[in-house]
């Protein structure tokens, strides 16, 4: 082998080894990065039943709502929201599922709400189960609809 060819061979070996180590470092960095994302879980910071939601804030939080109000709100706030995901507000009248509302959450934090229109037949005890996309219950809000 000529001297020129030998030099080319060493350069190629060096480049190959260099690429190999670079790949290792990149993989490690990626792993570290994904580890950070696991530690940041979707967290429900606030949940409340209220008469109204104004400027992303629940107004007149309560556990009893009159039919005259016409509607009831379930307010939820999440921080952090690591990635775009959906949550559910499951409204139960007594023990029977009345409505299931899915809401989209966007990172990094998100406030959202659902509401129901009140009818005469809705008087009685209610609960709203707030679940993640897998159905894990994050919180339960209980309230009553009265005259």
């Amino acid at each position, binding site marked *: 082998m000529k001297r020129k060819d030998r030099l080319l061979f060493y350069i190629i070996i060096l480049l190959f080894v260099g690429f190999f180590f670079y790949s290792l470092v990149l993989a490690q960095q990626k792993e570290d990065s994904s580890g950070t994302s696991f530690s940041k879980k979707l967290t429900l910071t606030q949940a409340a039943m209220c008469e109204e939601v104004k400027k992303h804030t629940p107004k*007149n*939080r*309560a*556990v*009893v709502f*009159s039919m005259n109000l016409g509607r009831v709100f379930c307010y939820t706030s999440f921080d952090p929201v690591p990635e775009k995901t959906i949550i559910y507000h499951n409204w*139960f009248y*007594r*023990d029977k599922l009345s409505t299931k509302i899915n809401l989209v959450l966007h990172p990094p934090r998100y406030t959202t709400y659902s509401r129901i229109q009140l009818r005469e037949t809705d*008087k*009685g*005890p209610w*609960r709203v189960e707030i679940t993640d996309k897998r159905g894990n219950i994050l919180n*339960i809000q*209980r309230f*009553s609809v*009265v*005259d």
Partner: protein
Amino acid sequence: MNDLFVFWGTIRWQDIVDVLINSYIVFRLYVLFRGTNVVRVLVGIAFLWFLQKLAGYLGLIITSWAIKGVTAFAALIIIVVFRNEIRSALQVKNLKTILWGIPRKGVETPVEIVVDSAYELARKRIGALIVFPRKENLGEATHSGIPWQGLLSREMIISIFWHNGPVHDGAAIIEDDRIKEVGTILPLSHRKDLPPHYGTRHRAAAGLAENTDALIIVVSEERGNVVVAKGAQLKVVREKEELSKILIEHLGIYEKQEGFSIKGKPELAIAGLVSVIFISGIWFSFTRGLDTMVTLDAAIEYVNWNPKMEVLDTSENTARVNLSASTTLIKSLKPEQVRLKIDLSKAVPGKNTYNIAQENITLPPGVNLIKVEPPTVEVILDTLSKEELPVQVDWVGNLPAYLILKEVGLTPKTVWLTGGSRILKEISTIYTEKIPLDHLDKTGTMTVKLVFNSTRLKITPDSKDQVMVRYVLEKR
């Protein structure tokens, strides 16, 4: 012939025991009451019963109804009219005599002495009244007797009735070998067909004979003859042998062979046979007559289920049972005598289907099953489990518009319940009783009861059936 074998095959050992026991009871009643009018009246009642059945069979409605009424009253009349005979029969020294022994006089009346005495008195023209009781008690028919208890002898009889003796006017009562009473006053007969020469003594003898089963010997003072009074009969007896024969027959004195009367043996054997035939006839009419059908609603009992499970639901709680039996048995059949049991020992959680078969139904003897409707039942069982459930307040009414019910706290927040796992799976909240809001105007606390919608749910002993509610009211 084949039918006979089939018939024998259907007879149970209980049936044979049944017939034998009752035959023996009838036989014992005959033995205890034989010789009294009770037996004759019982035969009359049995005849009436037979007539009533015959009238019923022929469709003679009023006749059957009338005889039935008379028969029913006759049973009561027997007890009232023959209370003395019943008492005498039952007043024996021990139970063995009632159950086993043949009542027989321990000591016999010396008939020869009595006969000789009677004719001696007649020859001497000494009037006499001698009473020989049988089974009936004479206590109510006679009175003023003087207890004597003297051993019977010819001399004693003559001396009792000797002219001007202090007790010669009354009657002497002879029981066994003793003169039990003397100077006894007997009831006078009011019969108008008695011969005119019969005086007070004869009328007294006739009076007692009419009212009791006793035999009375009358010795006429004027005519010097011997008259025997029994039942409605007054008979002049001229020969000693004849009087002796009458007395022996009346007193039931027979020749003996190893302690058992030769003459009485065939009579008892016939009585025993008649008892067996009589009871067998009744048994046949009760058990073999399948001419009547009836349909009853029988309650279904579900039994023997695993204690770790509970019966959630059953497709049927009653079943219509078609039965056949004799009219008598059907009339006396009560719904509670028909028991329908379903054994759930092999039941599993979930739906179980059972066929209602003969072995599930308990019937009185002699009643046959024709059909059960429905033929199957479904039973749903569930395993018992325990679960902790949250409590929620059930508010009702109208909260004043200026107030907001901001917050509610419960103590305890949850309760433990036991019940079927299916029911527990269906519920996720236990609610309080309804709490009216109308009179709430400030923050406070109250204790309220919990409401369980299913009776199959039970609160565990460590939980309470009430909670304390703390509520926070705020003005808007």
